[in-house]
């Protein structure tokens, strides 16, 4: 759709800009301010230049957290995207089943994030949890299942929680994409005698490209920012094995009160996210263009 060139449109954007800037730019400036000073107390600060940045870039705990974060977000995408597509393909296309499926799918998405953590603690605890008690009664594991006991158990619990929580989002997106494909495509495929696999590969998957890009974008971003769920479930432990970037940052800022390094870390973190956002955003724009052409 051709847009009208008109710079007065800025007046419509201005209120939104101001309210987001109030919550977005002013605090960010404060962070920049922190990151280049050593703050001893109110009114007592020394300019330190890039010292905190150097310190944080060389900080091995940051490297570890970053590595863990990439692992986690990567695994999340690898599991959730294919699973979400499968669910969308299996969902009914008409009748009462559609509404029912949509409501059940959306349910995990409206649960507060720390309650998600609570649900999974209750569900997996070895003394009262259905999963914990269930898996231990099978007596298959060398060390009884307890997400606080072994890093691998903590990771499995976190991943299970994450997949449980967010796969429905991918499924809903994929479903929206599938529903938008005109019936004629499938009729044509049927006439040509295309197999279900060929139909999926050459019709459904390409047509879902737009929504899947959004799904990848949202899942990558949000899993990169994850805080409340691991905070509630593992608190970053055992040890630091589930300390992701946000958890480490909050620890640094509010528990050790290292404002300077925490601010420098914040900016580095933000920059990484920004870089990925930009790449995904460009991909998203190109998808839109490709469909119009």
């Amino acid at each position: 759709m051709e847009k009208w060139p008109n710079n007065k449109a800025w007046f419509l954007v201005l209120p939104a800009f101001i309210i987001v800037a109030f919550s977005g730019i002013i605090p960010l400036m404060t962070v920049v301010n922190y990151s280049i000073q050593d703050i001893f107390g109110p009114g007592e600060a020394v300019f330190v230049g890039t010292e905190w940045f150097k310190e944080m870039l060389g900080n091995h705990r940051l490297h570890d957290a970053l590595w863990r974060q990439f692992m986690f977000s990567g695994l999340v995408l690898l599991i959730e995207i294919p699973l979400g597509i499968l669910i969308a393909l299996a969902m009914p296309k008409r009748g009462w089943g559609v509404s029912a499926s949509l409501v059940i799918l959306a349910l995990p998405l409206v649960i507060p994030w720390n309650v998600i953590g609570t649900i999974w603690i209750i569900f997996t605890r070895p003394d009262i949890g259905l999963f914990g008690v269930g898996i231990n009664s099978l007596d298959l594991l060398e060390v009884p299942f307890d997400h606080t006991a072994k890093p691998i158990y903590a990771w499995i619990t976190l991943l299970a929680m994450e997949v449980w929580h967010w796969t429905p989002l991918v499924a809903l997106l994929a479903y929206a994409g599938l529903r938008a494909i005109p019936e004629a495509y499938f009729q044509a495929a049927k006439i040509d005698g295309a197999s279900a696999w060929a139909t999926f590969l050459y019709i459904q998957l390409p047509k879902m490209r737009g929504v899947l890009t959004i799904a990848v974008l949202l899942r990558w971003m949000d899993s990169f920012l994850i805080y409340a769920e691991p905070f509630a479930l593992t608190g970053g432990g055992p040890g630091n094995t589930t300390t992701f970037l946000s958890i480490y940052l909050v620890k640094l800022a509010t528990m050790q009160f290292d404002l300077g390094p925490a601010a420098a870390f914040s900016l580095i973190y933000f920059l990484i996210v920004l870089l990925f956002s930009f790449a995904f955003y460009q991909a998203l724009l190109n998808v839109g263009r490709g469909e119009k052409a």
Partner: protein
Amino acid sequence: MKIQKRTIALCVYFGVLILPIYWMLNMSLRTNADILGYFALYPKDPTFANYIKIFTDPTWYTAYINAMIYVGMNTVMSLAFALPAAYAFSRYKFIGDGQMFFWLLTNRMAPPAVFLLPYLQLYSTINLMDTHMAVALAHCLFNVPLAIWILEGFMSGIPKEIDETAFIDGYSFPRFFITIFIPLIRAGVGVTAFFCFMFSWVELLFARTLTITEAKPIVATMTRTISATGLDWGLLAAAGVLTIVPGGLVIWFVRNHLAKGFALGRV
């Protein structure tokens, strides 16, 4: 036969999806002593004691009211600010529009943890600490960009000829926007409201940081009571179940538009 198999697989998946929630419901209907005493797949002796406690103890039920207040405020604010902006992005070409749109999105993608400390300072300075307004305003950081994103998708689906015809007929912009345009995209507005509600309702970090006692929401109350009460599982589960109820109700109203909304109005 094939469809049968699919349906079974889907039902199994939905079962897995419901199971953890069922387990919390099960816990919420038992007393703490009962929970720790023996393992049971269903409450043998169901009790509403946990729920009664929440509904009679002001520190619990006011926490729900607090959350409702700031979520409501945030939803109204986000829509009010996002509607005109989304219209501008969907209809007009102006200097810096692409950059502006991307900048707005970066706020949706900014790690909330980054803003934690500055928010404490900012909201103390302007005397908004521990008010509903503080949380509502802070949640605008991610909800306004998201609302613009979704609304822009829905608005771009409305042909521009409608706007042109209305302007030729002598409608002023505000009158056209409110009486003609918004009713046309009411499904989009409903879905956007749902998303603002949802992301404000589920958020923990800002809500916990910006409130102390007066505006403390349920999510914060839950994390703080974990240590204080020495883990009353039954009570915690009941509080958790009650946080799902509003979301569940809202889903029911937007169920037919959910999928399109999650695709940001772009299918």
